[in-house]
């Protein structure tokens, strides 16, 4: 059986701001994948030895790499923002003392945890800096 498929352009999301922000969120996956691949290449260079790793480290300091990371940072931060804002919908109902935890409380707690985790990671690296 052949069903009717309504024609749709690939640019349907451009006119409505809600859809545009949806696409920005979805685009974050490209940057998260690229960042994971970059770390994977770094790991491969590390396994190859000192010279290869130093060349990789040098490439991270190039202007293009820094710009890439600033853009990636913005996309990952937006992904985190949306991720925590939909948490009341993606989590099963959270109950505390027989009452449902309000949506706002879940979002605030989650964003607070992310800020705390980020500060903890940075302080750990800073503490063990050379």
């Amino acid at each position, binding site marked *: 059986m052949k069903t009717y498929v309504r024609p749709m352009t690939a640019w349907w999301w451009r006119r409505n701001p809600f859809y545009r922000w949806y696409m920005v969120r979805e685009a974050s996956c490209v940057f998260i994948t690229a960042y994971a691949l970059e770390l994977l290449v770094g790991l491969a260079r590390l396994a190859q030895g000192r010279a290869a790793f130093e060349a990789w480290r040098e490439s991270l300091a190039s202007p293009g790499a*820094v710009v890439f990371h600033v853009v990636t940072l913005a996309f990952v931060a937006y992904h985190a923002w949306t991720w925590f804002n939909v948490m009341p919908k993606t989590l099963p109902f959270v109950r505390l003392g027989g009452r449902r935890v309000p949506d706002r409380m879940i979002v605030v707690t989650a964003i607070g945890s992310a800020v705390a985790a980020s500060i903890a990671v940075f302080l750990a690296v*800073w503490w063990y800096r*050379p």
Partner: protein
Amino acid sequence: MKRSNKPIFWSLFGGGGMLSALVGPALVFITGIAVPMGFLLPRETMSYERMLAFAQNGFGKAAALAVIALFLFHGCHRMYHCLHDFGIHVGPGLKALFHGFAIAGAVAAACLLTAVGFP
């Protein structure tokens, strides 16, 4: 009835989404901006000796594998679902391609973490 593999891939997507939401911005800032530019952290924070010691350490191996594998599963899964938004009708081939890419990356990370050795 054949069991669906959807819960596995959605869990890996969720794990990667949660990990990247919690510490993703901090990791990108540290490894991509602060250390390479010597801003707030010295450039030698990611020297060969220190990164080798990190990759040989048990905690370091677990952290590196979790970040690389889960970020890849998250990103590839979302890209796969994005194809629909651009009018590409997905089938088993594309599903295998995107999820297979993430699996290959995770396996490569595990092999490399073994290859760098142990303390």
